[in-house]
């Protein structure tokens, strides 16, 4: 892919319910912040990509209503939707559109307003002839995969709780994050309401209202506009078979994420991710998934994920901070979550991380996760 870089990011204050803002308001909030961060004006945007899983809000073609809020009126604008990976897909679509030569600057905005939706439409992520009648929702599905992962790799509820605590403690330093739980402890996580054995409330991501935007620029333009662009070194995507029962021990194997990471690392010239990555923003829908992703992303050998979290390797002061933003476990507006990963990875390279900045971050990883096992892996760096 021709050289492109992220030169600006912006996001809303994420919350359980943003009653103070309509869906277009959320989109505008993030879009305006992103262009300000990039130091450009709305008229400099050549095209817009919107990421949103509109059926959660019961809608169709949402870009028609919210496009103007994303500064897209009178401009090329398309909407991308791929479940939980919508945000990372949207970012990758933005990368492709800039790299194509068609545009110098593309704005990508992901958003979701779960408070304006209904859980019923989440239930329609199922085959009407198969699992719509026997579904238990996302929590039940994750719990099933977790039972396999625990049996295979020996991770414990305590290790998962450490992930849950890390996420919420990191979120305290992120003014945008939805869940703010200063002083959260492992005991609190282990005592929180059991949703589906062994998943507890605090092991799960929330549903949030929020939006996040990034500004993508072509090589020449990026250099002119930003002192330290976050160059896209790799962007890999893999989709998977459609039923949960098709996937061999989902968290254990996660072949999609593994293969996308393999390709991304090869493209970015990364051989030892733990050493060569300075920060990672990974899409962890439940605490246990983060442990599984450590292994799938090659941060450690199989069976070692528990040790990684226990040894603090992925804490803010560890060798590879994972999710300084607080991750999906702290903020989850589905259409935005993937964009948040890319934005948080980019702003680390930009040096805009504030209280959550990882010192000297030069190479960052962002991943997306969606549906049962769809995966995106993106590598950003301070050099093209």
């Amino acid at each position, binding site marked *: *892919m*021709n050289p492109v870089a992220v030169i600006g990011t912006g996001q809303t204050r994420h919350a359980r319910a943003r009653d103070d803002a*309509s869906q277009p308001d959320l989109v505008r909030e993030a879009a305006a912040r992103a262009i300000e961060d990039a130091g450009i004006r709305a008229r400099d945007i*050549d095209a*817009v990509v919107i990421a949103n*899983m*509109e*059926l*959660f809000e*019961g*809608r*169709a*073609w*949402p*870009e*028609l*209503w919210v*496009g*103007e809020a994303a500064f*897209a*009126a*009178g*401009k*090329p*604008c*398309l*909407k*991308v*939707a*791929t*479940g939980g990976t919508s945000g990372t*897909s949207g970012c*990758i*679509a933005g*990368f*492709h*559109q*800039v*790299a*194509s*030569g*068609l545009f*110098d600057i593309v704005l990508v905005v992901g958003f979701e307003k779960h408070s304006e939706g209904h859980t019923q*439409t*989440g239930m*329609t*992520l199922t*085959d*009407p002839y198969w699992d719509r009648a026997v579904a238990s929702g996302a929590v039940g599905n994750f719990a099933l995969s977790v039972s396999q992962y625990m049996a295979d790799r020996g991770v414990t509820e305590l290790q998962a709780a450490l992930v849950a605590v890390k996420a919420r403690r990191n979120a305290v330093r992120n003014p945008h994050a939805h869940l703010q739980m200063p002083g959260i402890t492992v005991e609190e996580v282990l005592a929180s309401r059991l949703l589906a054995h062994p998943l507890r409330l605090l092991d799960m991501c929330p549903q949030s209202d929020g939006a996040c935007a990034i500004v993508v620029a072509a090589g020449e333009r990026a250099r002119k506009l930003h002192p330290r662009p976050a160059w896209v070194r790799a*962007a*890999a*995507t*893999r*989709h*998977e*078979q*459609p039923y949960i029962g098709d996937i061999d021990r989902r968290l254990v194997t996660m072949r999609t994420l593994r*293969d996308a990471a393999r390709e991304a690392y090869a493209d970015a010239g990364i051989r030892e991710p733990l050493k060569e990555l300075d920060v990672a923003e990974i899409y962890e829908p439940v605490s246990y998934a983060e442990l599984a992703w450590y292994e799938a992303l090659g941060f450690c050998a199989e069976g070692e994920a528990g040790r990684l979290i226990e040894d603090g390797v992925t804490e803010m002061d560890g060798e590879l901070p994972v999710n300084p933003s607080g991750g999906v476990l702290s903020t989850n507006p589905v259409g935005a979550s993937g964009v948040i990963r890319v934005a948080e990875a980019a702003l680390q390279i930009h040096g805009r991380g504030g209280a959550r900045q990882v010192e000297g971050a030069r190479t960052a990883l962002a991943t997306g996760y*969606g*549906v049962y096992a769809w995966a995106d892996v993106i590598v950003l760096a301070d050099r093209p």
Partner: protein
Amino acid sequence: MTAGSLRRPVFVCGLGETGAVPEDPRSIPEMVLAAVQAAYRDAGCTQADVDAVVTASVDLLDGLTASNIAITEVVDAVMKPETRIAADGLAAALHAAAQIAAGSYDTVLVVAHCKASMADYQALTRWALDPIYLQPLGVDFLACAGLQAMALAEDDPGAERRWAQIAAARRSCGSSAFSGLCDVDRILVSPLVAAPLRAGMCAPLGDAACAVVLTAQAPARSAAIAVRMAGLGWDLERHSLGDRHLRSWDGLKRAFERACGTAGIEPTAGGFELAEPSCLYPHEEELFARATGIDAATPLSPEGGLFPGTAPIVAGLSRLAAAARRMRQGRAERALAHGAWGPAGQGQAVAVLEARA
């Protein structure tokens, strides 16, 4: 900015369609599989040659969240990159072309599908309208088309007859699985659906799937004529009809200018030997002509366009396929394919196609 140019050429090397029918008894995956297999056969390729897939479908129309999940296996996207553009299928093709030009993939499969027969399509379109100001009024895409048509007909007493003639002429062109009126007088007395639009004037909506294979290499195969996607352009107008110029498709004009700019040609009708607009109603052909300068003086929808029958989402991609087919037969060297979505064509997409022997 001035229109950018594609960093790599993009060619259309495979086409496959089910054709639109009022109700396809097959499931969506089976319908899509048929179109995809036909596209591979036409391209002389297999799924192993395809690097990535871009799908086009709308969850609400399929009654399925993450609607692309139902077709992952039949579009051969397992362990491959796939992305979904939830707008008209031509927009998906434009994005796929951008992916190829970006150097990310060499060959991309583009697939669009929709079964309007599954649900009450017009009722579902209400969920695309602003939920604060428009949706509570029950406004749907048909009503918006009526409003636009009325704005055009207001000081044009010959408009309705002219539109009936267009609909009749287009429907007489080719075979159709739909029963539609081909007689002008009968069209003029058919029931009003959104005045001044009458039932007999509207393109019928049904079920279809369409697949196109795009590639960075001119196909070396038997086809002596290679069809290249030389120009791409798309646009989104403002949402509220009151914020738009109702008597024109300004978005199409901008999209057309961008596409011509990318192709390195003047944005005029001259040079185009074929146009395949996506017009669901006759007045839209006149909006298309105003925006692009291309009217019936150029061969326009020689197979009838959408009037013999079409499916939402598939329409624009089927226009690309129709244009490409005729170009391969040597019947046009430059063509414009068009797709639109949203109320009164709020979203617009065009591709400038060039043939090369």
